Every structure is written in C-alpha cells, then in structure tokens.
C-alpha cells in the first residue's frame, strides 16, 4: 500500500512524556494506519538542529508533514480521538 501520510514525532530522549508519546502513537496507528503512514521519530537532544529547522518548541510534538496542511499536536498523545481529529486523519 502506498504511503498516504508523513508524520514526524519529536521527543526529548527517554523522558516520561517521550516514552508515553511513542507508545500512545504506536497504539493509535496500529489499527489500519500503520501501512499508509511513514513515521520518523526525532530525538531533539541528539538532533537539536532539526528542531531548530522545523521550529519545534514543545516536546513531545507530532507533526503531520504530508499531506498539507501541516498539523501539529503537542503532548503525550494520551487521547486517541483528539489526536486523530487534530491531525485531520481518517482511518481506512
């Protein structure tokens, strides 16, 4: 299946929020979205220049890069419904 969505998740090392966000996002994507989403996890402690380039301030931050418009969600992504509507993502 072709990639429909490009997502970037910015985290700060192994902080509680970061670990939670990675887990939560994987959970959200596992039902039908995994194959059509390309996810890149960026650790801003290792790659601060990427955070600078993309103007990321808060972490964790999930950015839907493609398709436009760009959408941004900050937080540990603990609410699946809000994440999906925030990204304007539909399942299927």
């Amino acid at each position: 299946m072709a990639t429909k969505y490009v997502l970037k998740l910015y985290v700060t090392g192994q902080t509680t929020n970061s670990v939670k966000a990675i887990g939560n996002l994987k959970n959200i994507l596992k039902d039908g979205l995994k194959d059509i989403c390309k996810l890149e996890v960026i650790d801003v402690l290792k790659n601060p220049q990427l955070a600078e380039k993309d103007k990321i301030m808060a972490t964790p931050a999930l950015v839907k890069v493609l398709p436009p418009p760009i959408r941004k969600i900050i937080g540990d992504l603990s609410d699946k419904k809000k994440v999906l509507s925030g990204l304007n993502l539909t399942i299927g």
Partner: protein
Amino acid sequence: MANKLNKVPSGIPGFDEISHGGVPKGRTTLASGTSGSGKTVFSSQFLYKGITECGENGVFVTFEESPQDIIRNVKGFGWNIEKLVKENKWAFVDASPDYSSSVEVGQYDLGAFLARIAHAVKKIKAKRVVIDSVSALFTHYQDSGIIRRELHELTVNLKKSNVTCIMTAEKPVEDEQISRYGVEEFVSDNVILLHNRLNSYGERERTVEILKFRGLFHDSEEASLYVGAQGINIYPKPRPKLTGKGFSQKISFGIKGLDDLLYGGVYKNSTTLITGASGSGKTVATLHFIMEGAKRGEKSLLIEFEESPNQLYRNAASFGWDLKKYVDNGIVKLLCCYPEDLRAEQYLQMIQNLVIANKAKRVVFDSISDIQRIYNDRKFRTFVISLNAFLKSHDVTSVFTNTSPQILGVTEITETHLSTASDNIIILKYVELDGRMHRIINALKERGSMHKKELMEFEITTESGVEIIGPFKGVENLMSGFARRIYQMGLDRKEAGKDIIADIAAGKI
C-alpha cells in the same frame, strides 16, 4: 572593584554607570517594559556590542519578530548582524510564530526549546543570550505552570554555563506589576524596568530603572533613555559636586565700564547671569565676552538658541568684530540650534563633550530661558546646576543670559533657580525718562568681590558695542522702569534736567 568583576559591560552608553559596571555576569536579568519601551533594541544592543566590543558571542532567541525582521530593523543603527551570523558569532533561535495551528493533547514540556538554546550556545561558544520576549511563551501554551518550570530550568542551565542572559518581558500597563505573567518570580535576582510614559508636555519619555541586582550595587533612580541613530543612549542623572576652585584671578568681560563696576572683571570660573528684556543688549554683551577671550587666545564655546551663525557674524561685523575668523580658526566654537532639538540630558552631554574637545575656557549660553521654556522646573534646575558644576570643575568662566518677559519694570529672577546658581548677576534694563527710552546696566551681585552698585546708563553703538556712559543721578525709580527726576528746591524742572545733562556731558558723572 570587586563589584565590577561580577558584571559584564552592557554595550549601552550610560547603563554601566547607573548599574555600576554592567549586567550581572553569568546570571539572568529580566528587562521588563511596556510596548515601545525599547526592549528589543536594548537587548539587541547588549548582544551586538558584546560581540563587537567584548568578543563575547551571543544567541538571540526571538519570539515576536522573525530573525530577518530583526536583522533589518537594527541595520539602521549600523549593526550588521548578517555578517556576525556568517562569522558564527551571532546565532538565532527562531521561536517566532509559524502560524501552523497546534493542539495540546496530554503532558508536554519545552524540551526542544531548551535543547535548541543549548545547541546554539554550544555551537558558537556563546557567552550572552537574549530571550525576547519571554511573555510570548505564555500566550502560546495553555499551561503556565509548565512554562515557569521550564524557564527556571533554562536560567539554571545558563547559570551553569556561565552565560549572561537578558530576558525581556511584556508589561501591560505602566507602573503596575513588573510583568504580565509574573515572570519575575523565577528570574527575580535582577530586574530592569524600561518605562515609556507621556509627560505633561505631551512628549514620550523613555527611562530605565534598575529595580534590583541581587547582592550587587546599582543606582536606584530612573535615568533617561533615548533611541538615537546609533542605538540606545542612557543619560544617568547628573551628580554635580561643589568642587570648583575659588580663583582669585579676575578676567575681563570685554566691556570697559562693566569691568570697572566689577572691580576688574569677573572671577575666573565664575558664572554670570545677564538678565534683561528682549533687545536690551544681552547678546551683544556676550559677544564682548567671547571676543575679549578670542583676542587673548582663550578658546570659547558659544551656544546660541536665537540667532543663526550668519546672523551672529553679521551682527558682530556691525561692531567691527570678525567673529567668523575666530570660528574658522577654531578659537570660537559656535553651536546654533533650537532648544527643542534635544532633551536636557542630551544637551548636557553635548556641551560637556564640546567643552572638553575644544578646551573651551569661556562658555556663553544665550539664552538659558529658551531651555527653561521647554523643561519642567525640576529638570531645568538639575540642568542648570549640573552644567554649572561641570563648567566650574573645568575652570570655565561662563555667561548665561536670561530673557525677562517685561520690557519695563521689575522682573523676578529668583524664581528661576538661576539667581542662586549664579555668582554674578548683571541687569540690563530699559527706562523711560524725558520722553525716551534709556538703557541702564547694573551689577546686582558679584560673589566674593567688591562691586559698584550704581545704575549706569549705556548705549549700543556701532563703534564699540556696549558703551557705558555714566551713572544716572538725580533720578529715582529707575528699577521700576518709569523714572522720575528729583528736583532740588528752587530749581525748575527744565533747569534740573539741564544740570544733569551738563554734568554728564562734562564727564563729571
């Protein structure tokens, strides 16, 4: 001295004076002010001068304007930030709004923001950081508790790396709380307030005030702040000291009869006030004083608020004085301008610079009342006292003129703070007598010296300028402006008049 070691030069002229050495080193200082109070220029200048004058690289974290906007805005001050960025001396952390909406879902922190600042500091080995303005963070994120915690961590990190930081904050209204979101609570060690108020004359007045520098000494009064062609200038409140020498040497005023009244002229480094109505001969008298100095090779500074250089040259030439020659060869420095051009503190600094640069020994201020017109009482008093103290301490003999409002009659000069500041007071007056106007001159006061108290009649002639003819005798009420002859018994009015005129003509009086 120990105090200075704990501060870094701010790069803002005047600030290091009021702060007794600069910005607290290795700490975060909050600069809080309302919109338009100069926060961005202040912090940019701190960073720019830090690089160009102290060799300390700097990181600018911008929340409101984009880096491009900041580069463009300060270009007008002659600051080439683009070049510094290329040389890896200046780095931006761009936190300006990117207009993509973001939603908050669950817990977060500002880890990326902190990592970006740490990265920029490390990359260019920065010793200074500016965050402009931190208040924007509170509008971007809903949880202000998180912002506070993260900013606290940031200041701790910066302190560990021995980085000196200025954090600006938005103040909603003048003279209320220090900042909109209570930012001072966690960087409260050092707080600078930038004020921007409308004064009673309807002008914007910017001032800077150091609220606190924990454990470090600083001034506590507000100082004027001006944004000029080369950035911000701060004018510390003058601290005049009564330290002028008491010379016993007198110098000639340049008016023969007046020198006689003053028993040989005025004391060196004294201050003389010439007061009189418009057209009473004040400017001519000051020209005498300047030309006398010039003839002796004494340098002088002539500050003129009412006449242009060409007008002055023409008027001087009508008395046979080549003022232009002395201006051209640098003996006389002429400063002709409108008093409204600059504010009191700026004038003070300019005059001080000119006196020092030109080694002036005679200074004329024509007229001081023009300046009084545009400043409030307190400011005017400070101006006069500071100027006086400066001139005295540099062994300068000065003459100030004061324009009295009435053509005739007694005028008050005591109210203007001028009389106590002056060592000598010379009054020029018009008097109506026998159906015509006469000019009189009087040495009202000469501190520390004998002087003649007579009211002398004088003329202004093309041959010699102010020419003193002789004393009025047999006349009373001269000071009121409406004089009256005192008649002796047995003499009629006409005869009495003749008598006096004959006496004057014979040179008896």
